[in-house]
């Protein structure tokens, strides 16, 4: 089996997912995972697709773009290496980091810099500026020997100069308050980068 990561962007229109998924089906591809969003009118989709035999990434991208010509798709395809990737943060635990405050150039760069310096791996990130307000929510894996307080202090230090407040909380508190399933403690069930496993 050969696995490819496919990304498609275009101006948002009805029928893009239908077109892309149809092309992949006709090519014999099985979609393993998919994430799609519309950001300020721009459609973006990322898929992990498995094929029974190897494909040439550029050819696959061209077929998808041609089938969706009326949408003017921008397509990129890369091959995933067959060996499983090592998690960037072995034995890390999933935390939710929230940063709220004033919008400013370089906010995300500064926040990401604090995290990178401490070996924190971001696995999911949403941020937006709404007028002068900035909000960012991310899921990130903290190394087991890194106290959440340390990263919070780092972010707060950055936030003080930029009008931002930062919160670092283990994801279990959000599971506990949002879902009726039994409360549990300990590490997250989901693996790093795995966005579809049940919470």
């Amino acid at each position, binding site marked *: 089996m050969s696995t490819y990561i496919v990304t498609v962007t275009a101006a948002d229109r009805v029928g893009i997912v239908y077109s892309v998924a149809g092309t992949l089906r006709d090519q014999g591809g099985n979609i393993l995972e998919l994430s799609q969003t519309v950001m300020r009118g721009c459609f973006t989709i990322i898929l992990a697709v498995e094929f029974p035999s190897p494909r040439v990434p550029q050819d696959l991208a061209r077929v998808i773009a041609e089938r969706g010509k009326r949408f003017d798709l921008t397509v990129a395809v890369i091959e995933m290496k067959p060996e499983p990737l090592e998690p960037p943060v072995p034995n890390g635990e999933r935390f*939710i980091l*929230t940063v709220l405050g004033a919008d400013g150039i370089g906010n995300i760069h500064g926040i990401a810099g604090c995290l990178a310096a401490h070996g924190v791996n971001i696995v*999911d990130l*949403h941020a937006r500026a709404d007028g002068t307000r900035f909000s960012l*929510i991310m*899921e990130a894996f903290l190394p087991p020997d890194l*106290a*959440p*307080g340390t990263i*919070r202090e780092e972010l707060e230090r950055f936030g003080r100069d930029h009008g931002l*407040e930062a*919160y*670092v*909380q*283990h*994801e*279990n*508190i*959000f599971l*506990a*308050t*949002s879902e*009726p399933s039994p*409360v*549990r*403690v*300990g590490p997250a069930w989901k693996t790093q980068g795995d*966005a579809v496993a049940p*919470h």
Partner: protein
Amino acid sequence: MHRTEDVLATLGMIRQHKLDVRTVTMGIDLQPCAAPDLTVLCARIRERLLQYAGRLRAVCLEVEGRYGIPIVNRRIALSPIASVAAGHSAEGYLEVARTLDAVAAEVGVDLVGGFTALVQKGWTDGDRRLIETLPEVLSTTRRVCASVNVGTTAAGINMDAILALGQVLKETAERTRDQDGFGCAKLVIFANAPTDNPFMAGAFHGVGEPDCVINIGVSGPGVVKAAIEDLQTHATTRLTLGEIAEEIKSTAFRVTRVGELIGREVATRLGVQFGIVDLSLAPTPQVGDSVGEILQAMGVVRIGAPGSTAALALLNDAVKKGGSFASSSVGGLSGAFVAVSEDSALAKAVEVGDLTLAKLEAMTAVCSVGLDMIAVPGDTDAETLSALIADEVAIGVINHKTTAVRVIPVPGKAAGDRAVFGGLFGEMQILPIHAAGGSADFVRHGGRIPAPLSSLRN
């Protein structure tokens, strides 16, 4: 990815509406410490507290950091000392209290409960000695909290004990005159006392509990008030009380779940059993952290006006329902506290004359505790204080519920004067007691009010 709305809703409860874990209370069985030699008894108590609670502070700080939610207090609840120290003299009980005070400071807890006697059906020599020592214990120790259970639905009401406790309150208040009788704030007199209550001053580690257990008290009146106000802001038509009750329920669910998560995490890290989570809307003097403000958000603008009791009943019941759905480990008191001096809106209602002692007593019939943190005139006679206790205990005993009394006769001050307890204990205008002294003969009868009938309940 977690839904942005869920993340922001939970975060908003903590950062804007003062949701916190009010207390992580470790219950410890002290029965194995009993010894005829006082030195041995105190040494065993110290050793056992250090064994179980030595890491409590550090673990709470770790868990606080992990989840980003404040754990405001760490406390210890102990087996009723009246039986642990049975056979010792009054001086022995005092020495035990001093030991508890010192070890509590050593392990970093702000209060230790369990200087307790359970006397609903009668009292032992140990119970009597403990009660005799209360004024000195409450006035000379800083962290020791006391409670006495004087009635249960099964046993009736011990009026001899209640008569003695009226005198205890007078003496304790006098010994702490320079603090407006604050010593009385550390004594709770119960009917149907729960054995797993994590909230002070009435927490103790009851019979039937394990060697060591972690119980959690979560609060969050600000969260409930904000939820009701938010619901009203977005409603297109006038809300029904059923809709308000549903909103309180779902908010109570979220708050209770936070408590259970923290409790289980602390217990796991300490290697002890998790007990219960008690969601009690416990106010603090801060604006926005008030049960009274919830009633106002529901439309009872003047607390104490007709309708206050019904609103409180709705609130208390919805909190219990939400908590019960959230967790199978709900216990303690679980409901709404109407602790007057600790609740800025209730204290204000007293000040403007809307909230009276009689109305408060009626409200306690439907809330989770009783006459709590109420300052009364310092010249109130002991028998009247006993009668006040008896009334409140009767409400609990007849209605199969917990009630409690924490009243403070403020020495040298009269109705309308201001009593100031400071910190989380707040302040309030002293409430008058109408017809004080008019029931002394009743309480002087002593004896026991028999247990009530459990059938024909109309």
